[in-house]
């Protein structure tokens, strides 16, 4: 457990945890599960097993319950993702505005296949990102980009170093 966090990370985790726990009734610590896992992921980039154990202890539940949540929600990574997680919406509204082409273009440009986790890129198809009127769209590490075309996308890709 000691090597899970650096001293700085540990301090941020503890501070974040006590703030989050204050949002819920004292006997409902488990309710802080999603925010706490988000906190862990913001510190580590993913949710390692040791963190699940730690979270389980802090929220007075079991690692199984943490694992259930961590594997249910797609934004939680139980495996270390690439540096850039690129979520491309390919749902109907986006596909009607060229999302399938955009995904193919990204696959070519990044030299990866959707759904494969690499060191640098984790490109994946995701479901509707609420940009239907501003399609097509994608998110890079949760930063939202919409109304994309080739020129805009190229420019965006240049920033991913």
């Amino acid at each position, binding site marked *: 457990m000691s090597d899970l966090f650096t001293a700085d990370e540990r301090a941020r985790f503890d501070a974040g945890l006590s703030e989050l726990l204050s949002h819920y009734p004292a006997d409902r610590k488990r309710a802080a599960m999603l925010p706490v896992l988000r906190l862990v992921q913001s510190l580590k980039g993913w949710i390692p*097993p040791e963190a*699940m*154990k730690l979270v389980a202890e802090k929220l007075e539940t*079991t*690692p*199984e*319950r943490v*694992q*259930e949540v961590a*594997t*249910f929600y*797609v934004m939680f990574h139980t495996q270390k993702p690439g540096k850039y997680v690129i979520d491309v919406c390919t749902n109907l509204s986006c596909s009607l505005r060229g999302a399938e082409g955009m995904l193919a273009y990204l696959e070519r440009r990044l030299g990866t296949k959707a759904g494969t986790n690499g060191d640098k890129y984790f490109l994946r198809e995701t479901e509707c990102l609420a940009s239907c009127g501003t399609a097509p769209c994608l998110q890079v590490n949760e930063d939202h980009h919409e109304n994309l075309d080739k020129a805009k996308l190229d420019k965006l890709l240049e920033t991913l170093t």
Partner: protein
Amino acid sequence: MSEPTKPAGAPAPPPPGPPAKPPPKNPGFVTFTVDGKEVVAKPGTNMVEAAKQVGVEIPYYCYHPRLSIAANCRMCMVESSGAPKLVPACQTAIAEGVAIKTTTDKVRDQQRAVMEFLLLNHPVDCSICDQAGECKLQDYYMRYDHKPSRLEGSKVLRNKRKVLGPTVVLDQERCILCTRCVRFMDEVAKEPQLGVFGRGSHERIDVHPTYGSLSSNYSGNVVDICPVGALLNRDFRFRARAWFLSSAPSVCTGCSRGCSTWVDFMGQDVYRYRPRENEAINKSWLCDQGRLTYKALNKGRVAQSVVGRGQDAREVNAAEAIKYAALKLKPVVGGVHVLVSPTVSNEGLLAGLSLAKDVLQAKHVYVGGRANGAADALLMTADKNPNRKGLEWIAKGLGLELKPFAELEGALDKNQVKALYAIGTAVPVDPDAFAKKLAGVELVVAQATNESPVTAQAHALLATASHVEDEGTFTQEAGITQRVRRAFPPRGDSQPHWKWSSGIAKELGAAVAYGSSREVFKALAPSVPELAGYEWDKQAPIAQKKGISTLPASADGRPPGWRETGVPRVRGI
């Protein structure tokens, strides 16, 4: 998506106020009909249980009367006059005047659809599945579906043999995600070691990949409640096909809780224990430790009586053994120390202690039995002896004093014991050390079911039948007396405790008026106030099922399906 209920077909929220209800037909109860048959039930009863009352079976997978309602399998959907769409019978409480229909086309279509959905990603590997023969998928497929699969192409692949813990192995492909096991571990065992991981069609039951292990002492129950072949007992796996096994109602003799069991056997071999429903004692559960105590019924048994010790030892038949024991006991009557084990049935104790008191003229007996062990919050008790209560009652009723085992050891240490008569040879101390103390005793007559260092010291070792080999009763710690049924005849040349005791008594000239355990109870129980009123015949549970015996198992001594190479081993197990 957003907000309250999902866009499509949002279930209507509750009405603003309850409409005026007509008065109930049977005040205090709810009256309604199931397939036209009128049922009267307590308020709050769900439709599945209510339908059972009139013999209507509503099929289900996820429902279990002792677990919370999940309503996730959707197999129990029925038509109800109180709802526009099909309702899950397990979740829905009956209401006054409602008419439930369980056999309409709509219901049949739903049952068939659910069967098809469940079998969609199921491997259908029944031929190598232990659950075959007692599988709800098989049973319901034959009854409610019976159609070929319409799925083409591959199925979702998952882990086929994942060892979850010391007792249980999981085949995730066979799992139908009814979550009974997860709910059991949460709600009954209170050790939430299982979870449903992932989402949608890729989700699976598992323990935590890094920290998890299904190590609970109650993990075996998830195998029992698994409606399909996903969770299997590692001890039973690949050892027998369910339909060859016969079952007899019995009790677990692993501790003083005395859980009701089914003994599943083939020929004279026991293959497993399963919990038998008993609201007062074990509900529907059994602990893993108790589950494995069946092994002593098969292994290390004393099958043939032996007289003489060491080099003089020779195997004899029962009649000879009795003669020998009586001959040796006769000169020492009045000076025999008696050791009795609280693992012996009431009938064995009644006959044995009668012999001790009336014939051998003992004033007290020493209590042997197994040493105390771990207890837990649910079922398992520290006292590992199934019939201590019975022993206490009987000794008191017959006027015998019970003395602790340590006093016998003390007497042995002081060389005060010349002759010992042991009814059961379990001892609460190291058997090797105790056996050494017996070496100097001039006469040891021992009735034993299993070989041990103690039995090796006997001058007359009387091969004794186990509790599944004779009718009898056991009294558990809370004073509940339970009848056990005979599963199969005594192994080898063994015979029940009472038969040895009565044989010796007769040989020593006493008048013995019983020739069966039933008669033992009838003759001797009246002197024990606690047992006097027990209705021995009426309390006998009705035997469950007979296995399909293709050939008498004893014909060549091998169970059906036996292969020369033995039981197949699987990698990783």
